[in-house]
């Protein structure tokens, strides 16, 4: 897999994994949750997040609906679909294999 593909897969993985428990979140909350879950280590570039969310919805990995936010403003909420859950499993498997391979090299170097 080329580097851009891998980077693209990273964002997909983070978003899908964040939504995997079944919560519906708007883009802002997804970015915040990734930041919190990574213990402040990862900050998703907000400008890249929204095109990715739309792309994943077009791929049927996410579904969205408009509803009122906690501040009573109209917001678009995303939730993971069954296809998205299958996708996250596949990407996780790829990532685990990738990380294992890198770790093997690091141990031997």
């Amino acid at each position, binding site marked *: 897999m080329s580097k851009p593909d891998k980077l693209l897969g990273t964002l997909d993985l983070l978003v899908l994994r964040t939504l995997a428990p079944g919560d519906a979140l*708007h*883009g*802002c909350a997804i970015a915040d949750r990734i930041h919190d879950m990574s213990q402040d280590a990862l900050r998703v*570039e*907000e*400008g*890249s997040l*929204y*095109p990715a969310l*739309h*792309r994943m*919805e*077009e*791929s*049927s990995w996410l579904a969205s609906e*408009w509803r009122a*936010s906690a*501040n009573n*403003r*109209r*917001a*678009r909420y995303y939730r993971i679909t069954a296809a998205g859950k299958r996708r996250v499993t596949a990407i996780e498997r790829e990532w685990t294999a990738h990380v294992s391979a890198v770790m093997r090299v690091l141990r031997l170097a």
Partner: protein
Amino acid sequence: MSFGRELLNLFRTTSLERDIDDEIRFHLEERIHQNRAQHMAPEEAARLAHDQFGSVERVKVGMRAARVPRKSTLAAISAAVLVCSLSLHQWIATGRVYELREGITAPVPILAPAPHYTDAARLAKVHGVVRR
């Protein structure tokens, strides 16, 4: 992207554009609200929110690109429209030939397909009856 979704996107470009604007506006307002909650001045809160988000136009381009139908879909739709146009054209032309042949104008709908008067003898007979 499924074919149905791509087709749908072609016919709702206005609402897609409005959704994109609303989503970005919500994001920036939410960030400004969060920044204000941390006792930032309004201008500073807005500036930071916009800085973190980056170029709104660039994000919009990315969001639109995610919704654009594939070239193969556009080609399939164009081919379908072409076939429908040709079929309709042929249907209308056949109706007009029938109208001229019968010599009747008012009660015959122009868009009606021709009846099954295909053999020459029957056509001549019908023509003769109408003339008498």
